[in-house]
């Protein structure tokens, strides 16, 4: 079990680093797809299969394709682009990142949550998720329906070619 986790985690981390550091944008998007797939496998290993499949459907099936379309529409995939890929102040960013990582790992290692015994795996059925969504979480469900409608209309209006400014 631990070997499976280590392999999937290593693959996901390498894909994430590759997604952020390659020059060719389409390659970055494809490595991002691999990272998201690795995360879905980790969700399935944590007995949250519904979330894992939803992650594949939404992130890989929709968000990754959106990113790829945006790369194609903004001519970002041109070959032979010789400008530097990182901004001039990358040392500051790396220092900030290391600071964040250090504080997170420090708080994890010194927390009391990791010394408790691990409980048995919960039995998560789709019926339980449906019941919870319709009873306890019905208000967030309705709000997110409104949010998605607003995002849909907003994205269409923003990206529409407006004829007056030609």
């Amino acid at each position: 079990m631990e070997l499976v986790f280590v392999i999937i985690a290593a693959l996901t981390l390498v894909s994430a680093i590759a997604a952020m550091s390659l020059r060719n944008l389409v390659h970055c998007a494809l490595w991002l797809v691999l990272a998201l797939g690795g995360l879905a496998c980790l969700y399935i290993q944590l007995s949250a299969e519904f979330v894992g499949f939803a992650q594949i459907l939404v992130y890989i099936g929709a968000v990754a394709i959106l990113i790829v379309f945006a790369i194609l529409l903004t001519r970002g995939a041109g070959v032979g682009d010789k400008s530097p890929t990182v901004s001039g102040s990358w040392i500051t960013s790396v220092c900030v990142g290391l600071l964040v990582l250090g504080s997170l790992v420090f708080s994890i290692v010194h927390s009391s949550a990791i010394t408790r015994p691990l409980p048995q795996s919960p039995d998560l059925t789709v019926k339980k998720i449906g019941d919870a969504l319709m009873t306890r979480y019905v208000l967030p469900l309705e709000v997110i329906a409104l949010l998605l409608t607003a995002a849909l209309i907003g994205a269409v209006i923003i990206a529409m070619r407006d004829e007056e400014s030609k």
Partner: protein
Amino acid sequence: MFETLDQIFILLKQGVLGLLPQGIRPLASCLLTVSAVFSVFGLLFAVTTLVERKALGRIQNRLGPNRVGPFGLLQPVADGIKMLTKENIVPRAADRLVHFLAPVVLIVPVALAFSVLPYGRNMVPVELDAGLLFFFAVGASTELAVFMAGWSSRNKYALLGAMRGIAQMISYEIPLVLSTLAVVMVAGTLSLPQIVSAQGGYLFGWIPQWHVLTPWGLAGFVLFLIAATAESNRAPFDLPEAESELVAGYFTEYSGFKFALFFLGEYWGLFAVSGLAVTFFLGGWHAPLPMLQWVPSWLWFFGKLLFLLSLFIWVRGTVPRLRTDQLMNYAWKFLLPLTLVNLVAAAAWHYSRSWDFPAALLWRWLACAAIIAIPYVLLGAALGGGRQKTQRIYRYAD
């Protein structure tokens, strides 16, 4: 004796596993199931390519392939040998790794989709609680392969075909999912074997309780088939790969074995969505009449699957191709509102199931059919208005 025949594959598998040592039984079980599924669907692919070419030939008033073997029956073998021995050309400017991986990214999710379909009584390879969500998740992953194929070839025709193909597949994914949502709502589960069991009984002793025999099920079935035709890039929605428009669309630069893999992936996608349609609407592996229950359940499943495949081939030979803008209009403005109306009709059917005055079934059927038919007519009139119908003149070849 007929129960043995019905469960014969399960019994064979248990027999083989009994001969093996305890340690490797899980692995051997997986390998046996996987090899059975692949061999059946590989054979079905070969048969379908031949049947499609002969059937299309007959529809177009000509014979199909009839040189190789008696009545052309060995044509798939000839096609296979041709695909395997053709030279594998990769364009010099192409992105080699992505070009190589695109067929793989197409085949692997589609093969995964075969693992949740119930092929017979107790014959599901993997029984998942959220089986339908898994099926649609892997279906969405195949769109990425289309993009990878089109972009890595560095060919304008291929890229254009890929973008059209992805836009089409995304647009038709929504009616596909929403038309199955009505079945999920009435059956109350996302698990495919349970949806098949929900269609089990017989009304009045002889009418099967398949979902296709309810008004919302019939509308959902038709909507699902239309969306499935578009998802598999089949005629009349095959503009991304039409020969007369874009050379071969997003797999222009592929030759030899990789082209065969794309072809295989497309047909396997068709088999998978047909299997889902059989599971959701046509009662899965149930027999249509109680007196026919002695026929093995897997024979019923594959019989219904072959019936749906012949429907797809028939539509391909009959209907002309749609333009891209007509295709997108159709998906967003016509199919999507109709699937939502279908959902309302299914809810009405489900809530009226406690009616028990005489001829209640007939009144429920008429009410739900009216809920679907009236918006259909109004929407069709609103969207298709303003075009005069001309007189059709048919000329036959003599």
